[in-house]
C-alpha cells in the first residue's frame, strides 16, 4: 500500500528586539538567571502589559516579505493555563486577529520548486524556563525568557516530506535573518518548530489523524523526527490500529518520538480578549515607514548582482543569501572596486575562512575599509591575487592594515621587466633539459617555468609580465 505524508509546521521565531513584548526588561540571552526580569515579567499583582511596537515592526516586515495581508488593527488574547514558568497564569497571544495573515514561501527541494502557503503569523510572549536537574530536591525557575517576543508562523498543511520541511525551514531561516527579524540561532532556541504530521492513503481526500512533534531545534532533527514519525504512523496503520492524536517529543539521543505526558496538555485554554490591552493600530504612516526601510530580498539581490555587475550566478546566490555578506559586497562595490574580483574573493578565500571559523563576516577582523585597500592593491597591480590570499590570511589573524602588511613583508609585486628578465634567464640556464623538452613540443612545461620564476621571486612577480617575458625568452 502506498502512503502520502501531510505536514504543517508551526515555527516560533524569537524576535530580535532589545526589550520584551510587554515590558522594558532586556531580552539578552545567557544572562544570570532571573536578572532580565521586571515587575511585569514577574506577574506581580497590579502590573500591566504595554506593547513593544518594535516587535510589531518586525512582524510586519516579515508579513510584507511573504506578501501577506497585514492587519493594521490587531488584538491580543489570553491563553489560560497553570505552569510555574508562566507567572501570570496566562500567556498573551494573538488568537482572533493576528498581525499577519496569508502569504507564502517558495522552497526548492533538489531543484524542484514549490510554494508553501502561510496561514498566519502572530505575536505572543514566551514563557520562562523550568529547570528540574539543577538541584537534587527541587525544581527552579528562570524567568529571563518570560515575555520575550515570539512570532509564531503557521504554515498550511502543504508540506509533503521531511525534506520539504527542512527546505521550508531553511527558507524561513534565511528570510527572518535577512530581514533582521530574528537572529536565527537555532541552538539557542531563537528559531524552533512544532511539526504536525499525518499520513493518508494516496488519493484519499480526507486528512489522517495527526500528531504534533514539539520544539524541534535543528534542521537535521526536523528531518529525522518527521521521518521517524512517518514510519511509525505507517506501522501503526498497517497493523490495523489507529494513530492517536497527541503531542510527542523528539529524543535526538534515541532518534525517536514519544508521547509527552498527556495530562499537561489536556487543557481548555479559555481564550478571551486581553482586557489590559487595547487593539494595536498601526497607522498608514507607520506602514509607510516600514515599507520604505524594507530591505531588498535575496532573490532580487541575486538577479541584480548578475545583471548589474555580471558576476557568476553561483557567486551571486551565495553572496545574496546572507545579509552580512551582501552588505560587505555592496560596500566594496560602492567604493568603486571591481565587482567580479570582490565577489570572487568573498565567495572563495573569505568564504572558506568564514566556514573554517564558523563566524559571520561582521564578526571577523576583516573590515570593509581594509578589504577596499586590498582590492585596490590588486587592481593597481601592487600585488597579485595570489599574494592577496596570503595577506587575507594575515588580516584574518591580526586585523592589520593591508598596506602595512604589504610594506612590512615586502610583498609588492615585481613589475620591473629588467629584474624579471634576469630571473628568467637564470631559470632557463639552470633547467636546460626542460628547455630542450619544451622546445621539442612539451608545451605543458610552460607552467613549470612560470612556477620556477614565481618561486625565485617569492610569488611577487606580476603573473602577466612573467607570462609575456617567459614566452619571448623560450621562443627566441
Amino acid at each position: 500500500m502506498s502512503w502520502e505524508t501531510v505536514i504543517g509546521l508551526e515555527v516560533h521565531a524569537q524576535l530580535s528586539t532589545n526589550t520584551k513584548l510587554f515590558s522594558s526588561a532586556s531580552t539578552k540571552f545567557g544572562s544570570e538567571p532571573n536578572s532580565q526580569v521586571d515587575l511585569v515579567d514577574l506577574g506581580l499583582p497590579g502590573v500591566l502589559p504595554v506593547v513593544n511596537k518594535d516587535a510589531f515592526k518586525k512582524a510586519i516586515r516579515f508579513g510584507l516579505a511573504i506578501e501577506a495581508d497585514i492587519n493594521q488593527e490587531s488584538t491580543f488574547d489570553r491563553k489560560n493555563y497553570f505552569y510555574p514558568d508562566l507567572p501570570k497564569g496566562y500567556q498573551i497571544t494573538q488568537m482572533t486577529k493576528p498581525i499577519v495573515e496569508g502569504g507564502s514561501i517558495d522552497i526548492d527541494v533538489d531543484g524542484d520548486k514549490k510554494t508553501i502557503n502561510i496561514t498566519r503569523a502572530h505575536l505572543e510572549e514566551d514563557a520562562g524556563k523550568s529547570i528540574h536537574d539543577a538541584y537534587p530536591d527541587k525544581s527552579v525557575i528562570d524567568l529571563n525568557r518570560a515575555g520575550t517576543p515570539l512570532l509564531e508562523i503557521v504554515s498550511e498543511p502543504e508540506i509533503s516530506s521531511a525534506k520539504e520541511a527542512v527546505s521550508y525551514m531553511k527558507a524561513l531561516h534565511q528570510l527572518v535573518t535577512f530581514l533582521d527579524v530574528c537572529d536565527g540561532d537555532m541552538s539557542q532556541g531563537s528559531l524552533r518548530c512544532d511539526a504536525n504530521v499525518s499520513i493518508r492513503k494516496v488519493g484519499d481526500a480526507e486528512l489522517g489523524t495527526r500528531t504534533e512533534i514539539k520544539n524541534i531545534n535543528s534542521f537535521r532533527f526536523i528531518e529525522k523526527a518527521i521521518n521517524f514519525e512517518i514510519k511509525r504512523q505507517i506501522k501503526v496503520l498497517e497493523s490495523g490500529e489507529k494513530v492517536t492524536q497527541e503531542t510527542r517529543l523528539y529524543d535526538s539521543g534515541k532518534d525517536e518520538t514519544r508521547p509527552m505526558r498527556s495530562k499537561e496538555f489536556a487543557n481548555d485554554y479559555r481564550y478571551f480578549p486581553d482586557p489590559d490591552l487595547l487593539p494595536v493600530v498601526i497607522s498608514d504612516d507607520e506602514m509607510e515607514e516600514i515599507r520604505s526601510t524594507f530591505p531588498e530580498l535575496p532573490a532580487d539581490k541575486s538577479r541584480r548582482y548578475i545583471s548589474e555587475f555580471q558576476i557568476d550566478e553561483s557567486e551571486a546566490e551565495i553572496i545574496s543569501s546572507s545579509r552580512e555578506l551582501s552588505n560587505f559586497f555592496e560596500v566594496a562595490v560602492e567604493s568603486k572596486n571591481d565587482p567580479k574580483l570582490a565577489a570572487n574573493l568573498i565567495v572563495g578565500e573569505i568564504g572558506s575562512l568564514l566556514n573554517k571559523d564558523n563566524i559571520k563576516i561582521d564578526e571577523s577582523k576583516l573590515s570593509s575599509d581594509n578589504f577596499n585597500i586590498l582590492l585596490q592593491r590588486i587592481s593597481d597591480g601592487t600585488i597579485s591575487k595570489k599574494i592577496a590570499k596570503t595577506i587575507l590570511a594575515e588580516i584574518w589573524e591580526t586585523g592589520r592594515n593591508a598596506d602595512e602588511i604589504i610594506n612590512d613583508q615586502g610583498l609588492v609585486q615585481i613589475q620591473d621587466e629588467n629584474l624579471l628578465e634576469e630571473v628568467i634567464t637564470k631559470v632557463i640556464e639552470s633547467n636546460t633539459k626542460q628547455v630542450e623538452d619544451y622546445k621539442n613540443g612539451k608545451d605543458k612545461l610552460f607552467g613549470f617555468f612560470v612556477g620556477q620564476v614565481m618561486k625565485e621571486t617569492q610569488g611577487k612577480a606580476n603573473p602577466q609580465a612573467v607570462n609575456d617575458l617567459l614566452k619571448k625568452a623560450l621562443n627566441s
Partner: protein
Amino acid sequence: MSIRFKTLAELKRLLEKKEISSYELVNETFKNISSSKTNSFITLDEEAALNKAKDFDEGKVDGDLAGIPIAQKDLFCTKNLRTTCGSKILENFIPPYDATVVDNLSSAGSICVGKTNMDEFAMGSSNETSYYGTVRNPWDLERVPGGSSGGSAAAVSEGLVCAATGTDTGGSIRQPAALCGITGIKPTYGRASRWGMIAFASSLDQAGAFARNAEDCALLLNHICSHDLKDSTSISDVQENYLDNINNDLKGKKIGIIKEFDISSLNKEVQDSFEKSKKIFEALGANFVEVSMPNIKLSVPTYYVVAPAECSSNLSRFDGVKYGYRAKDVDNLEELYVKSRSEGFGDEVKRRILIGTYVLSAGFYDAYYKKAQQSRRMIKNDFVDAFSEVDVIMSPSSPSSAFKIGSKTEDPIEMYLEDLFTISSNLAGVPAMSIPHGFSGGLPIGLQLIGNYLEESKILNFAHQYQKNSDWHFKTPDLGESS
C-alpha cells in the same frame, strides 16, 4: 480641637493658617482609629505617617494635599507596606512598588495612614467577604457599610480620615458611599491609572475617591486621575481641573431619569427622598426628562459574566509559586496549586472564579462571554443615546439603606442586586458618583449622578450645587461613648 468630621478643604485651611500641625492631625487620626469599632483598617503605617507629618511641619513638603492624612484602599499596591486585597492569599504580601494613584497622591503631599478593609479582591457588596473581618457601618454597628470599598467609606463616614481612595468595578465606591452617608466618585474608565491596582475585572475596574462632599472629591480627583504610559487603557485626553466648573449654573440643564428603573418598587422613604432631590434640582433651574434605556435590564447578568470571566484569569497568578500564601505539606505541583488556592481564597472569590472559568470554557464561550460582550455594547449604546438628550442621569445609588450583617450572605443573587443601579455605568465606562440625600429607617441613602464619557466635571457641578442647597452631607453618625 476636634478634627473629626472636618472636610478636606477645612483641614487644608487649618494647616495653612497653622492652627493645627500635621503632626497633631496625624496623631489624632491614629488615636481615633484605635478607639474605632468599625474595623475599617487592615494595616496601619503610623511611624511613616508621623515622620511625613513632621516633614510637612518643618516645611519640607508642599502640594495641593500637603500634610493631610488619607487612607488607601488595600487594593492599591503600596511600596514596602503590606497590601492584602482583603485576602488570606496576600496576607504577607509587601509590594516593591507604588500604584500610580498612590504615587500621585503622595506627590501631592498627602499622608497615607493605612490600608482600608475591603471585600476580598473587591468581590462583594457588604465587606463581609474580607479575610480580615467584616467592616461595621458607623451609623449602626450591626449593619454593613456596603462594599467592596467598605473600609474606606466607613473610615470617612466615621470621621477617621477626611478622604480615602476606593475602586469601583460594579458600584464598589458608590454603594458604600450611599450606605455610609458620604460622597464618592468613580471617574471615566481609563481616567485614573490601573497600574498597581490589584485587578479584579480589568475592563471595569476604576479608581476613585471618598470624601465628605463633592468639592473635596473634585480636589482629590485632580490628583487621582492622570494619563499613565504604564497602563495601555489609560486615557490621554487633557485632564481638566475638576474644581473649575463646580459652581456653574444648572439653569436649563437636563437631567435624565431612566424609564426602565422602577423606582416605585423601592420603599417609600427611598422614593420620597428621590422626589425631594428632584425638587432641589428643579429649584436650581434644571429640567427632568425621561430617557429610555431598554438594555439596562441586561446590566446585572452581563456584569456577572464579564467580571467573573476576567477575574478567573486575573487571579490565576495567585498560585503559591512566586508570592503570597503557599500551602504546606504538598507532594506535587498540582497539589501545591489546589491547596494554596483552596486555602488562600474565600468562598465568594472561588464562586466567581468558577463562574468565570465556566463561561470561558470551550463550548460555552459563545453562549455566555460573547453574548455578554454584545449586550455590553448595547448598554453602552443606550448611554450614548441618552446623553445625546440629557446632561446627567439620576437614580438612587442602591435599592435600600444598609442591611444587617449576615442577612444576605446566604443568597448571592440578592447580594448581587445591591449593584442594580450602579453596574451599568461600569459596563459603559462612564463616570458616576453618589451623594447623600436622605435617610431610610434612620440610615443614610444615596443619590447617583451618572455623567457622559469624560464629563466628571459636570456631575461634580450638579453634586456641588445640590450640596449647596441641602444639608444631608453634614449629617454624621452618633458614635456613642467611644468618641
